[in-house]
């Protein structure tokens, strides 16, 4: 029975009932049940399942199950369940419904077998997730959410336009591997690129995620970008261009992350950097590198969620996430600090943590393919990750100089969510076998060889040494209250200036036009009302005779036509 329900639909349809459940405990239990049922349903689906039907003249495939979609389906369900546990204390139906619909749409997208279905879910993730940003209910969040939703809906529109062109060129809307020829696939690639936060298309991420609610960011970090990674892995595996795009993505956010003060924004930059690894994996396109992308997405969702959870707990308890205002929190939030360190170790790819066993797949694939420059960039990026996420995050939040803050430990439900996530991070790192077993291709890789472990440890130790040296000598960029300008300055400021210029120049004509239009619309409504309103000609109770007249008119008309 459950294998006949498309993945994701359980969460989307189930979200409808959430506002009706008034009791908080019942509502939480119900919400947690949805992804668990969905996950169970997923295990009932055989790979190779393919539903298709004809609609509007297109051959649509709402569900296509194979190894690649399954692994993303699994981790999306797990992330949804963990995020829900983390948000148990929330009593805001808007966030709860939005979170469920968002997760459901992302899951649905991972099983979409054609571009039109993908488009529907693609827009679904955009429109539902923006409510998680708006739920902060402050002006910054409102405006940033607006920018976010415009960019994402725009990405969806590009996707649809690309799909249409692709259909005209090939006669099929099936979502399979594409070659980058012609306008259609190019538009689709740009749409994917926006959502995957390619360099210069990335700013929505650092703009929006730190503005979302404490729990909303945890949801956000899991789905949108990983859906885009999935789409890239499905549509453009082995596209050479992506290797260089990915390499740039791993490197440039590091500099921003090092100087950034808002620790959730640091995490947003490091999220971007981790996506770079996955994009490189897609670009190399060998079985091993695609395995690496899938595995890295899996472990990345977990440890990134864990880091956002711990920073969220700090924000929740202290009201700030600025490195310059925090420090010394380990005294009163020891569990949170511990979980944060697990997340930091995972993202830094310490041996025995989840990042190690997935990232090494990609780096090894790069080396095997002879991409030496890329290999070097990836090593540099790995060191950088350790720098800003591995050390900076826990150090500035929980240690450093004592800020004097003595917040309470995080709420119990947050600790449970973080605990489970941390456990998964370590479990995957220690026993990579089960994860390797569900990867799209056969894995012939042993992460724990002497070379791998030693290389990685050397890298980490020298990176730590550099951090220590810079801190000691005072050369490290101090944590300052500051706003760092990113590429988006180029379209946000001048665009507004141009817009203002246009507004000033055009305001006079515009006002005239608008009043004219208003008058037209008012007139139209008045006319409609005159004829259709309660006392209008068409709504009045007529004389019986007039109906008879109509009968006669119709009969005469008919007879005239008939006899002519």
């Amino acid at each position, binding site marked *: 029975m459950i294998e006949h329900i498309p993945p994701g639909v359980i969460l989307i349809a189930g979200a409808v009932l959430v506002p009706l459940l008034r009791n908080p405990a019942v509502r939480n239990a119900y919400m947690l049940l949805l992804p668990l049922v969905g996950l169970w349903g997923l295990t009932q689906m055989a790979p190779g399942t393919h539903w298709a039907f004809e609609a509007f003249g297109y051959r649509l495939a709402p569900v296509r199950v194979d190894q690649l979609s399954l692994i993303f389906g699994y981790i999306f369900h797990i992330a949804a369940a963990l995020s829900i546990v983390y948000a148990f204390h929330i009593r805001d139906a808007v966030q709860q419904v939005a979170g469920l619909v968002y997760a459901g749409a992302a899951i649905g997208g991972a099983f979409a077998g054609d571009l039109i279905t993908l488009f529907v879910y693609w827009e679904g993730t955009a429109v539902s997730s923006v409510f998680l940003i708006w739920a902060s209910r402050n002006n910054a969040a409102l405006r940033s959410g607006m920018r976010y939703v415009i960019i994402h809906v725009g990405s969806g529109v590009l996707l649809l336009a690309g799909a249409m062109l692709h259909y005209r060129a090939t006669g099929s809307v099936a979502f399979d591997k594409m070659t980058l020829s012609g306008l259609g696939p190019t538009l689709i690639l740009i749409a994917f690129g926006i959502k995957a936060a390619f360099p210069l298309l990335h700013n929505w991420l650092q703009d929006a995620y730190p503005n979302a609610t404490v729990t909303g960011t945890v949801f956000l970090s899991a789905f949108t970008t990983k859906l885009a990674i999935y789409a890239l892995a499905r549509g453009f595996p082995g596209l050479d261009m992506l290797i260089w795009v990915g390499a740039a993505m791993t490197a440039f956010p590091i500099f921003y992350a090092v100087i950034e003060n808002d620790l959730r924004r640091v995490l947003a930059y490091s999220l971007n950097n981790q996506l770079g690894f996955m994009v490189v994996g897609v670009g190399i396109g060998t079985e091993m590198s695609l395995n690496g992308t899938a595995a890295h997405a899996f472990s990345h969702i977990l440890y990134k969620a864990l880091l956002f959870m711990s920073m969220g707990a700090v924000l929740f308890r202290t009201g700030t996430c600025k490195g310059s205002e925090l420090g010394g929190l380990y005294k009163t939030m020891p569990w949170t600090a511990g979980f944060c360190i697990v997340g930091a170790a995972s993202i830094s790819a310490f041996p025995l943590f989840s990042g190690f066993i997935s990232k090494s797949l990609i780096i090894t694939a790069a080396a095997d393919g002879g991409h030496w420059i890329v290999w070097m960039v990836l090593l540099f990026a790995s060191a950088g990750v350790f720098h800003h996420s591995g050390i900076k995050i826990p150090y500035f939040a929980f240690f450093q100089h004592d800020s004097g803050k003595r917040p309470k430990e995080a709420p119990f439900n947050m600790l449970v969510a973080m605990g489970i996530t941390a456990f998964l991070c370590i479990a995957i790192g220690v026993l990579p076998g089960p994860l390797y077993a569900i990867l799209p291709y056969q894995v012939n890789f042993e992460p724990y060889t002497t070379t791998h472990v030693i290389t990685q440890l050397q890298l980490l130790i020298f990176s730590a040494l550099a951090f220590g040296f810079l801190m000691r000598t005072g050369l490290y960029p101090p944590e300052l209250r500051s706003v760092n300008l990113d590429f988006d300055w180029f379209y946000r400021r001048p665009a507004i200036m141009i817009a203002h210029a246009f507004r000033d120049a055009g305001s006079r004509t515009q006002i005239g036009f608008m009043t004219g239009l208003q008058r037209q619309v008012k007139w139209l409504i008045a006319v409609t009302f005159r004829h*259709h309103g309660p006392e209008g000609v068409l709504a009045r109770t007529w004389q*019986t005779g007039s109906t*008879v007249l109509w009968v006669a008119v119709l*009969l005469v008309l008919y007879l005239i*036509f008939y006899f002519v």
Partner: protein
Amino acid sequence: MIAAHLPALQVVVPLILAPACMLVRLRDAAWGVALAASWASLAIAWLLLQQVLASGPISYHLGNWAPPIGIEYRVDELSAFVLLIVSGIGAVVMPFARESVRAEFGTRRVYMFYTCYLLCLTGLLGIAITGDAFNLFVFLEISSLSSYVLIAMGRNRRALTASYQYLVMGTIGATFYVIGIGLLYAETGTLNMADLASRIAEQPGSRSIGVAFGFIVIGLSLKLALFPLHLWLPNAYTYAPSMVSAFLAATATKVALYALLRMVYTVFESDLTLGLVPMYAMFLGLALFAMFAASTVAIFQNNLKRMLAYSSVAQIGYMILGLSYINVTGLTATIVHMFNHAMIKGGMFLALGCCMYRLGSVHIRDLAGLGRTMPLTAAALVAGGLGLIGVPLTAGFISKWYLVLGAIERGWWPVAVLIMLSSLLAVAYVWRMVEAMYFTPPPETVPEGMDTRLSMLIPTWVLIGASLYFGVQTELTVGVARDAATALLGMPR
């Protein structure tokens, strides 16, 4: 043994029990008799449908007089489907009637109400089952006369004038029909529909037959409230007792439409194939007018029963539109929408009956905050409203889907676009309702207590639930409708 006589029983059971209601006089006993008759009719209709689906059309000779001399009852898929709609609606509204009727006109002469209701049911079932053109006229009059009485029983004194107006117009309609039949009889010498069809085919181009067709179609159009012959409908539905509005809105116009389909496709089939008549252009134009004009009027109505009445005129427009395509898909849409609209509109009128019972008014002003004071009733109105718009997963969507498909099949793209646009008008009037119910605070004088009686809520939700169920599970409705449409157009299965 009994199974062989089911077609007769379908009509005879309510006909015999109607005077029985009159005789028992006691309020609850009369209700019990009417309830039993309605449920028995539903059971018979269901058995008939099963029989037809299993072994093809049934021909029943009343009193063993062979047609064309005797009266023939003929049950094929279409008539079995309409019988199911009529008796199903009757069976669902009867449990609702008890409280509603008591509240709306006290205890006096309630047995008369049930007597008239059963006669009306008899007439409607008879129209759907008979294979004789003149017999159809008799049943048409039975159902019309009893429904004039039912409407006149409304609490508002305007019910009387509304009923009188309906009487005059209904009589004109019936007269036109009987004039047409008279012409046919003079020309062919028979009244049996099948016989008529074959004899009409023998005289192509006969002028009297053409004129007869015009009279019949216009007479029936009046009965089914085709725009602009709908003028009797809004007042009749507005001022009738709640239960009567629900019953008539869901059945009366559908049965008249059935009679039209029967006449157009079974009796005059040959004229159609020759393409002699300009009737289809007229149907198309009037249907489009109805969809837009009536929906726009509905937007501005403040009495919700009146709003739904105008929306009915618009929905009838959709049904006539499907008919004007002259293809299987369009006809399927018409037949399916007869069923779906009966569920949706019946359920919504019942919900308004709940409001009438509890609040004593169905004015939009008095329904403010209904979402809080009567949550289940308000939800029923919203679910029904979604069906009227044609939102996916509701029955209304299925009808519109086939309607659009039919238009595209015919190559009429602009019509497909117009169907979509007219749905937007439905959004407007449904939204007005939602706004009043959910976004305005309730008045402070609302009576205490949750919602309304279960005996009224359950029938409401049975119909609304059906409209949602048949929005997903379309095997029964679309399956039967498609078979019926194929049979009407005389195509091989």
